[in-house]
Structure formats: structure tokens, C-alpha cells
């Protein structure tokens, strides 16, 4: 699993404006600092069992910190993107896309064609 390491609040900001994924960063454990991540639409996913054991500065508060935390944008509650109840009528658009494919795949059929 790809986890990107970042070492400053700027880097966190840059990361979540360019891409999404798991970010590993130092965190002081200060509960009030969790809100700072809201700006990026991210949350602290967990303090991973696997810790690097290194010392550094908390990317949220600048305090000295030894704990690694994992940040990410997450599915919390109902997903916000897209329509939530969009029901494609079965076989409408799907048929349009699949039929050419079936047609072509029949033409190119492998050795089991009778």
C-alpha cells in the first residue's frame, strides 16, 4: 500500500489539493488540532500500529512529536460526490455499450466456436 510521508502543513495542503491517498505525518496528539485537517476535507484515519519511532515536528501544530498518524480523505457517512440514488434503468445505456462489444467479440471468437 502506498503511503506518502509529509513533514509540513504546506506539504499536507499541497498533497490534498493535487491528489488523494494515505499520508503519514507526525502528530502531537493534541485533540484540538484534528480540526485543522477539515480545511483539506481530510481526517486522521488512525495512529498506525507500525510506528517509525523517529522524532520530528507535528505537521498540524509545529510541536515536537514522535507519533506517526495517517491522514486521508474518507468515506464518512453518505458519500458526497455524485447522486446518491441514481438508478440506471437496467439495460438502457448498458445495452448500448455492450452490444458492439459482444458483436466484435463474436467475430474474434477463439477456438471453441462451433
Amino acid at each position, binding site marked *: *500500500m*502506498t*503511503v*506518502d510521508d509529509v513533514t509540513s502543513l504546506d506539504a499536507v495542503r499541497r498533497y490534498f489539493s493535487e*491528489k*488523494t*491517498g*494515505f499520508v503519514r505525518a507526525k*502528530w502531537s*496528539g493534541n*485533540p484540538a488540532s*484534528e*480540526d485543522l485537517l477539515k480545511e483539506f476535507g481530510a*481526517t*486522521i*484515519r*488512525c*495512529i*498506525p*500500529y507500525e510506528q517509525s519511532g523517529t522524532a520530528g515536528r507535528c505537521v498540524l501544530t509545529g510541536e515536537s512529536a514522535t507519533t506517526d*498518524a*495517517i491522514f*486521508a*480523505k*474518507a*468515506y464518512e*457517512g*453518505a*458519500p458526497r*460526490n*455524485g*447522486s*446518491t*440514488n*441514481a*438508478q*440506471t434503468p*437496467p439495460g438502457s*445505456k*448498458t445495452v*448500448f*455499450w*455492450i452490444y*458492439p*462489444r*459482444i458483436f*466484435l*467479440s*463474436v467475430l*474474434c*471468437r*477463439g*477456438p*471453441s*466456436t*462451433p
Partner: protein
Amino acid sequence: MSAAKRALPVTRREDFAEWYQAVIDAADMAEASGVRGCMIKPWGYKIWERIQRRLDDDIKATGHDNCYSPIFIPIELIQKEASHVEGFAKEMAIVTHHRLETQDGKLVPAAPLESPLVVRPTSEATITPALKRWIHSYRDLPVKINQWANVVRWELRPRLFLRTSEFLWQEGHTVHATAEEAMEETRTMLNVYRSLVEDFMAIPVVPGVKSPGERFPGAVETHTIEAMMQDGRALQSGTSHYLGQNFARAAEIEFVDRDGQLKIAHTTSWGFSTRLIGATIMVHADDDGLRLPPRLTPYQVVIVPIMRGEAQRGDVVAACEALARSLRAQSYADEPIRAFVDLRAENSTTKRWNWLKKGVPLVCEIGPRDLQGGQVAVHCRLDICARGVAQNLAEFITGIPQVLGNFQTTMWNRRADIATK
């Protein structure tokens, strides 16, 4: 054929949310039911049964017994745990009547309940008082129970499998004499979830402890496994809570310890739900539909007979069934191979696409020509191509455990190094 043509009407890149729904439609897994909750269709339920069976075995192997608690929670019971209730209050369904009457030709609720009942959003409120009744001394501990149940959380923006107003899950509840023992239980069950999700479902996770802001209401520690979806967003995929003495104190779960002292017990709870079917889609599916890892999938091999006219029908069907029997005699991951022969009166190409979109790892076709050549045409779901690969039948049968093993490993490797976008 053009590489751009895909079986789904929308790609992941175009609209991830629409694509997610399209995978479910194409695999025929579930549908919005028109009433609250969702209709889980047979293919979706088969996947749940696979998860359920493996998890149930693990839960029992770690010393837990299944039981069942009532769906209705008296409102005064749920009021007992204030912080807990706060977390769920906005999404509760409440039963207020117990009869229907006809008035002016319309059915209306009658006979109001003296005290309304909450439909369980989780079962701490009913299970904890039961635990209090069962526990008196250290000899009664630990109590380790689990239940498979449906729960209701009134969702304003439901989404199939991910957030539905009613969903299926298991919830484990345990009581221990000491904090150390309860902590060990919390970690043990998180590891059970981790193994299920990683080894069985081929979804890599980051295990860890939740920060205070993300903790389960009322817990001392929440342990979690976090998985990464293909849209770059994380999904909490299983949680195990060390509840300390918070719930036990509220429910007065006390016991006489070895030293004769009356002590408050330590409790845990842990849950895993149908939401993970949503995770399977968002982690493994592609623009042609669902893809299922061999250990999870209800069918590992689907066999489609190719028939032109009735003349050779009997022979082809017999060959397909013989292949299924030979495959079932082999095993992979300590289970007989799950092979299915599709004899529906549907054309073979449609059948093949049905199963590929449902995520079955291998789809085999056998026609009259294959009978003569002792061959089978194999379509692999990892990377769909138009042609099946012709394989010697006997070699295909003996090689199947290895092929499925490689398939599982490949799915794991592809997700383990999933590129963040």
C-alpha cells in the same frame, strides 16, 4: 476491437459514484427497494454469505458463542448511555403503535405504545443489561458473545452497501475481569478482521488506533483497519472497541473477584458489516464490472456450454458437468473448488459477459469442437480479452489450484501497490 470500449456505461475516471452504481447494476447485486433499506439480490447475498461463513468460523475459533438479542429497544434503556445515544439519536427509527385500523377506507396506526421502542442502531443497550444478569462472580467471566443481525440507522443519503438505512452485520460483545484481558480481546478481534480483509478479500489495510475525535462514542480506544479505495478515499473497514468500564459502570456489570472484592467489569465490542461489499467493489472492480478474489468469490469457475442446435446438446452439457465435477474434486485454500455450470436458456456470449461482470475469476466455454480436441476456452477476469485461451482440459483441471492461487496473489499485489491519484 477498440480498447476504449468497456462493459459499463461509465468509467471510474468519468464519475466514480455513477460507476459504483453501474458495477452493482451490471453484477445484479442489489437494488434500491422502493422502501427504506436495500434489496440485496442473490449475487450480493452470496458474497455476504462467503464473508459471513469465514468470519463466523474465526469468531468461534477465538472462543465466542453466537446468540440473539431483541430488535426493539425500550426508549428508557437507550437513554441510559448518554454519550452513546448522542451519536445515534439523529438516525433512529421509533415504533410508536402496535396495531392498524381502517378509518374512512385508509389504514391508520392505532393502539399507541405507552413507551415507544427504538429499532436497534446497535445492540449495546439490550445486550449490556443481559450481561449484567448473567455475571455475578469472576467464575462467570469472560463472557464472549456475538450476534448476526440487521440494524437500522435512518440515512438521509443512502448508498447501496455503503450506507443504507438497514444493513446486516455482526456485533461482538465481551466482558472481562481486567483491562489487560479486554485490551487483548480488542486487538485479537481487529486482527481477525485484518486477516479476513487482507487474506480473504485481498484488500490491504492500515491497522491502528483512532484519534480521540474519531473514536466510537463511549469507547476508551477504538482500533480500526483503514482501506484505500480506487478514488483515493479511505474507508473504515472494521472496528474493535475497548470500552473500558464506561458501559459496564452505566449498566452496573459488577462481579465478585477472587479477592472477594466487588469490581466493575471491562467490556469490548466489535463490528463488521455489508459495507465491506461496497469496499470490495471500490477496491477491485474495473470499467468492465466487478472482480472478485478467488478466496471470496461464490463461484471460482463458471462453465458455459456453447450449443448450436440440439444435436450435440447432450454431449456438451455432459462435458460441462464432468468438468465441474473434476474441478470440485480439487481444492484451493482448504475448500473444494466452487464450479458452476450455467444451463440457462440464454445465448452463450451473454452468459459469459454476465459472469465476467459479476466478477467470477474464470469463465470456461465448451463447445462441440472442444469435445473432440479435449480442450476448453478459458476467459480470465483479471484482464478481459475478446478471445478465450484454449487450454488442454486435463491440464486445466490439475492446474486450477495454482491458477487460483496466482490470481489471488495478483489481485493482492495490484492493490498493495495501488497508485495514489
